[in-house]
């Protein structure tokens, strides 16, 4: 879908229309965790992800008038992808920095579950599993990782993924098949090691 990000950042009156801002809040803010999750997987860095998400929401607000569907989530994801691409370009031109993948991400995260009956042991197992799975997902090449995360973690349908990444559904299907096949190989290898 076309997401026309133009350069003019001038404040026209529509930018400050409170009714419009309210509609935007109601439509877009409920997806903040989803957008942030995708940003974390695509950028693999918490503070870059925050910046990208903020930029994504500002662009989305700016273009909210031209938004005519499809669903809100794929539209936000499409904008986020554009922001992330700019970030990739910046990283490519910047001196190489090593991304520290192995930093436990749980420390800075609020867990999504707050059940009293969760024992600390159960929580630890859960967190260890999650970080192992995240590590495997991170080994996937970009288009495969993106499709996989959109499907398995952001819970999009094939058509919504196609909308978000601007590719035909057939491409989405073959990327997802590749992604899952690669993950299965890594998965089985990891299990073999654990024995």
């Amino acid at each position, binding site marked *: 879908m076309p997401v026309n990000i133009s350069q003019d950042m001038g404040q026209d009156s529509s*930018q*400050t*229309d*409170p009714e*419009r*801002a*309210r*509609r*935007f*809040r*109601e*439509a877009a*803010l409920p997806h*903040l*965790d*989803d957008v*942030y999750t995708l940003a*974390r997987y695509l950028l693999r860095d918490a503070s870059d992800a*925050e910046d990208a*998400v903020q930029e994504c*929401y500002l662009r989305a*607000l700016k273009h*909210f008038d031209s938004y*005519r*569907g*499809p*669903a*809100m989530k794929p539209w936000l994801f499409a904008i986020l992808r554009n922001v992330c691409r700019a970030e990739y370009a910046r990283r490519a031109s910047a001196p190489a920095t090593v991304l520290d993948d192995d930093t436990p*991400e749980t420390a*800075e*995260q609020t867990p*999504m*579950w*707050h*059940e009293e009956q969760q024992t600390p042991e159960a929580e630890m197992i*859960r*967190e260890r*599993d999650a970080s192992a*799975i*995240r590590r495997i*997902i991170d080994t996937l090449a970009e288009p495969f990782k993106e499709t996989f995360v959109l499907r*398995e*973690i952001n*819970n999009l*349908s*094939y*058509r919504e993924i*196609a*909308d978000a990444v601007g590719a*035909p*559904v*057939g491409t989405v*299907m073959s990327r*997802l*098949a590749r992604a899952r*096949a690669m*993950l*299965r190989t890594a*998965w*089985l290898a990891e299990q073999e090691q654990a024995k």
Partner: protein
Amino acid sequence: MTCDEAEILIHALIDNELDASHAREVEAHIAGCARCTAALADYRRMRDVMAKSDLRYTAPASLRQRIDAALPKAAPAPASNVQPLPSRRSLLRGFAMGSAVSALAATGLVAIVLRNDDQQMVESEIVSAHLRSLQPGHLIDVVSTDQHTVKPWFNGKLDVSPPVIDLTAQGFTLIGGRLDYVDARAIGAVVYKRRAHVINLFVAQTSNAARKPAKIETVQGFNIRRWSDRGLNYWAVSDIGADELAEFGDKFEAAVQNNKEG
């Protein structure tokens, strides 16, 4: 069907994106192919483990505040102190539905094998889930007539928090909650009783925040009252009469409304 074809379509099968006849074809191939059977078992296991792990991230509160602060502030609320309800028309202006883009993008083969993501399919799955729940031992995961027990139980199991409201005083007794699967996704079910009849209230997230007023339909002999509100889709399913189900829905919606305001 060849293994090459099945290798792609097996995923559409797992994701419940295949229409019924192609799903049967893929299943028939898998039944006669050890390699594809093993692959399917692995993929299903991977999905189970992933579903149990917490792979999502939560946006930091500071980010939420920064974005919120960057958005123009809403007009001050009217003196009555009651938040105006979003006008449905104004919401819809921003949300023209449907996606011609994706329809065009679908290639020939894919457009044929993928199922229609229509309401009917979801509703027949809702009825199947309702029927499943009536099997002995399947109705309830958390047994409680206390909404303050049932609601927290859903935390962490779903990416939404279904409203759990005790309607005993209104003639519909809350008896518990359950995690169910519809359209290959986890969905919350809040269970009520009316005399000897079970009412399953299924609640799922929707990306469309627009309010949709209730509609009652009959699918396979069951009544379904469906509506959408504040980013959630609701389906109340039961074998009680349409008028009683409508009463249930009206009372539930009124109670949700009161909770928001109270």
